[in-house]
């Protein structure tokens, strides 16, 4: 298959990636760019594990073709930490004990980051609603929501 070249910004750096046109953004990030924090859970837009911040919005990267990302600004978990240290949201997840197996956590943190970028002081209801597209099998969500609230209190 003829490859296409996708130019976009990933984690604050411009990249250009040669990729088959039938590949998803998820594949481009994980396979071509080695950003394995982006998890593949359901492959059908149901679980949120593959969430990335795409032009400021949390989106499921399993549902976007790589070619659609031309010109996009994409942030994965690797682009969130500050000088290799956890940022305020990551730190809040650690302190709240919000992480068990961790598989849902990159998507959870990016969804929370996207929320707090737009609304630094959300109510608990707004937190719940923003996080409701991300499934977690381990935590029962309570500590995840507490972590987002803790991060918000420190913004």
């Amino acid at each position: 298959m003829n490859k296409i070249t996708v130019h976009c910004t990933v984690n604050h750096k411009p990249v250009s990636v040669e990729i088959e046109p039938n590949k998803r953004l998820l594949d481009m990030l994980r396979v071509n760019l080695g950003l394995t924090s982006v998890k593949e859970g359901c492959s059908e837009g149901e679980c949120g594990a593959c969430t990335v911040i795409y032009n400021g919005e949390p989106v499921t990267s399993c549902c976007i073709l790589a070619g659609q990302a031309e010109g996009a600004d994409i942030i994965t978990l690797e682009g969130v930490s500050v000088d290799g240290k956890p940022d305020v949201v990551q730190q809040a997840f650690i302190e709240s004990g919000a992480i068990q197996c961790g598989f849902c956590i990159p998507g959870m943190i990016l969804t929370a980051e996207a929320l707090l970028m737009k609304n630094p002081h959300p109510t608990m209801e707004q937190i719940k609603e923003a996080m409701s597209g991300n499934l977690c099998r381990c935590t029962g969500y309570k500590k995840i929501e507490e972590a987002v609230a803790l991060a918000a209190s420190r913004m």
Partner: protein
Amino acid sequence: MKRRGTGVGCMFYGIGNTGLPNPAAAFVEVLPDTSVNVIVGAADIGQGSSTMAAAVAAETLGLAIENIHVTWADTQVAPEGGATSASRQTFITGNAVKNACTQAMGELRRTAAEKLEVPEEDLVFRNREIYSSKDETKRMTYPELMGAMSYRGRLAVGAGYYNPKTTYLNPADMSGVPYEVYSYATCILEVEVDTDTGEVTLLKCVSAHDVGTPINPKMVEGQIEGGTAMGTGFVISEKIDVDPKTLAIKNPTLSKYIIGTNMDMPEIYPIAVSSEGEAGPFGAKGLGEPALIPSIPATMAAIGNALGVTFTKTPIFPADIVKAWKDKQAAENQG
């Protein structure tokens, strides 16, 4: 019509394999810089067995949890850990870590006793210091002790294992000792049921668990919260649909096999109940499966209580609820 109901689920649960030997082992070495290598077979898939192993080692050795490095599950280097199942790793691997640390402390005790000129049995290892329980002015720091160990050419290494004290069960009548320790729990759950649509809203849940000593209290809470999410889902939304002819799973996607989102959760109040004197490391017991178990009968009973009927099967889907309510009304009208 919306109706509210409350249900209670209680359980006791045996920790470890039933009536079978199921040992686990650990290797430990305290290094000259006071960092510690702990190697266990227990596979940590998020339940926190590695944090548990670090906490048990730190407490036994009198060091800080930051000093402990845990290598886990790699069968090329780790000793037998047995399965991460039966809610057994805190109890069994935890005891193995404690035993391995106790062995490694043999040379530490001998060396500290020589340096401080006190009997070995008087020594206390706590907060990175070693002192005599009889005369607390006789004390040294861990780095000093490790210096004395190096000077004498001694190494602090230990291997230990633990096998719960159970017996094989008599096949004739199943008598015997199936488990060494048991966890206990009670879950109380409140629901609102819409009798027209069969929809169940989970309102509030209090789940109290006797876990012995909670080694990592936050993780104990997290396990109870996660277990409640699974247990309630088991009753109201989750069903693996198997095609009886082909045995293929007909709903292998998250759009057809429904697990709860954060919006579906009740308010969850987890309670860790401490109890003392049992055989686990510092009295700790297992929580993995107990976290989930009592929320299942509690949810069933709560839905039943809301409608005034008794359900005997899971799952209870909206269609089951609408039918149960209609059947009840019909029976009442006849009677």
